[in-house]
């Protein structure tokens, strides 16, 4: 693991995160309350407080290739607890985006794939078509019958429509996607290739 004394300026990464998220990670004095409160912390290799620490010491590679940033469920407990009011959710968002843009390999393929199907569904219908999303995702992850029982139960109660339903303001949805087109394209093309 390479960190801290790299050829670049030591604040480079933290400054980048600050510029993109508006959050100043230098305020963190490592009390660890974020990690203590995080419901997914037990799944994480690197705890949230350490992600912040790694940003502080310019350890970009470690951060952007970590699974932590993908495991984060944006529940905001960390932000609520943080005595310095650092919004870790924003930071995580920015880190995920940087990771994609700069072409880091995502250690959690499934999450990335799920996100893509989710977005595609939203793009097409303006909302998520649960059935389609589930089916696509399960097929792609080669576990076609996962969640089948629960899915049928929900279907019977009319919670999952068979066909996708479009929402009314599709032109607005199109606008949103058009706006984020450059990013999405870069992301689809596999980014910078690192």
């Amino acid at each position, binding site marked *: 693991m390479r960190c801290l004394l790299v050829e670049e300026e030591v604040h480079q990464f933290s400054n980048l995160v600050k510029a993109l998220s508006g959050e100043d990670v230098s305020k963190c*004095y*490592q*009390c*660890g*309350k*974020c*990690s*203590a*409160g*995080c419901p997914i*912390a*037990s799944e994480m290799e*690197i*705890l949230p*407080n*350490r992600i912040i620490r790694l940003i502080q010491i310019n350890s970009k590679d470690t951060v952007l290739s970590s699974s932590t940033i993908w495991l984060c469920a944006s529940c905001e*407990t960390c932000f609520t*607890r*943080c*005595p*310095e*009011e650092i919004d870790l959710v924003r930071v995580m968002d920015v880190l995920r985006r940087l990771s994609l843009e700069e072409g880091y390999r995502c250690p959690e393929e499934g999450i990335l794939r799920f996100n893509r199907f989710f977005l595609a569904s939203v793009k097409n219908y303006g909302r998520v078509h649960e059935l389609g999303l589930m089916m696509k995702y399960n097929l792609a992850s080669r576990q076609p019958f996962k969640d089948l029982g629960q899915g049928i139960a929900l279907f019977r109660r009319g919670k999952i429509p068979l066909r996708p339903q479009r929402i009314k303001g599709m032109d607005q949805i199109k606008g949103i996607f058009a706006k984020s087109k450059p990013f999405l394209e870069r992301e689809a093309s596999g980014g910078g290739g690192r």
Partner: protein
Amino acid sequence: MARVGVFVCWCGSNIAGTVDIETVLEAARRIAEVVHVEDNKYTCSESGQQSIKKAIKEHDLDRVVVASCSPLMHEVTFRRCIESAGLNPYLLEMANLREHCSWVHRNRGEATDKAIKLIGMAVAKVRRLEPLIPIRMPVEKRALVLGGGIAGIQAALDISKAGYLVTLVERLPTIGGHMAQLDKTFPTLDCSACILTPKMGEVLHDENIELLTYSEVEEVRGWVGNFEVQIRKKARSVDMVKCTGCGECIEKCPLKLPSEWDLGLGLRKAIYRPFPQAVPGVPVIDREQCFVFTKGKEKCRACERACPADAIDFEQEDEVIKRRFGAIVVATGFSLFDEKAYGEYGGGQYKDVISALQFERMVNAAGPTGGHIIKPSNGREPRNVVFVQCVGSRDRAKGIPYCSKICCMYTAKQALLLKEHLPESQAYIFCIDIRAGGKNYEEFVNRVQSEYGAIYIRGRVSRIYERGDKLIVKGTDTLAGIPVEVEADLVVLATAIASQSDSPQLARILRIPYDEHGFFSEAHPKLRPVESVTRGIFLAGACQSPKDIPDSVATAGAAAVRVCELFASDELALEPAIALVDAERCSGCLNCLEVCPFEAIREERVDSRRVASVSESICQGCGTCAAVCRSEAITMKGFTSPQLYSQIAAPFEEILKELEVEMPSC
């Protein structure tokens, strides 16, 4: 024509490193009415001062400009210096080449230019200065000490021992303060009460000390050497003279109420004495609870019947007394941060989550449990006890941003006491850092870990919740990089030290400044740490910032010395650079009266006209009044309009000339 001498200081490399002294000297020589210019490596040094004195004599200087640092540092030095050379000390002006120039600029050329302008401004002003003579006032040699905690007690005793009269005012029925609630003190583990109560007794019996408990200051008027203070002695409902302190009355009182002294862990009566060693030992009736006051005059009166000395007096009324004091020591202490702000710790809902002070009462032999550590929920002895540090401290979001300074130490002490009391128990301490700066402090913390087996976990607790009769404490061990959970029987929260909630009101009464957290501000953090900005008012103990006992005692002693210094002379010399109202010009709008932070302005009548008038001994010369006076009826001595205007105009002379050309001329 004035004869001005300009003395440019290098301040070692502080100024000379950024400002080109040669250029400055040359420019200064060209300023009108400047007849002597010289530089010194350190003008404030003895040799620097000697050379000023010499120049005054040799060049017959009548005004002096010292271009060095902030007047806050050395104005007094140089005033004294020129006074000893025969000049009026107020014919000095300082150009601040350090804080205002060299320290804040990098570009040498620009800094030099600015230095020249600053000197030009100082010369412009000094030329118009007039000699001022300090105002002399007699001193009332009696001190008022506010607050009967360890700091107030110490200050009162020290002043008294120097032979001056003291009035000690405490708002609770007893003196002692927070120290009297503690069990042992760190790091020596002295019994808190054992070292405090002798001092309390001393106060009670000291002939120089007038002790007013259950009393509060309502109004402070006047000025250093002559404060007029109004104090309200609340009705105690027990005759202080008659009462023998036997305690029969307390026995007979039928009402049982939660004890504030024990922070709700124990009970007291409606007539009570906060703790057995209370000073004075005379009980007090809680009029909000006592049946005589809540249900009717003829109700109960059990205490009255029980009293052998006939000391109970339901008819007693508040007494307002007035005293004159020469100085005031403020030692009103601190309050504790309320842990209810932490919903994730139960917000005060879980019985077995207690504050450190509650733990202190519990472990105290004189406390509600007689010194037994128990789970308040079921009275059983706890095994796993979790101490959580920084509850409120270092928390910008929910608490206060500063470090409360003493929690690391008292938590370590409590962990130790826990093990002493319950050898089977285990202490877990969640901390962020361990701040143990102090004599024998670090060693103490080490001992708690190595000898008493306390487990320190570096990380903050995120959540505490009940599972069965246990408490689950969720945190992270940031050193190990893993989340941890501790199953605890008892959780002790090291709550932060906060200012007294009513400190702003007191500050207003005393006319002293306080900081954003409600702590009273010292005049200078390094050099005048126990003085407030208002002359004659001194600070001691934790009303100023979080302090441990030795610090509180030390500041109390220091404040006492300040008081004694003041009382050592019969007269006071007051700063003459104050406001002066020209009654002729005054239009009587009295906006000045509204804005004066020192209440130094009063309304007067001059031939039936309403005008403002300044009490010269209260005025601190802040200039706020002059700023709001549209009639320009208020002059600040030493800062008159012509003095300031010429100072302001000095750097713009060239620009002004240019502008004039552009303006329509006639």
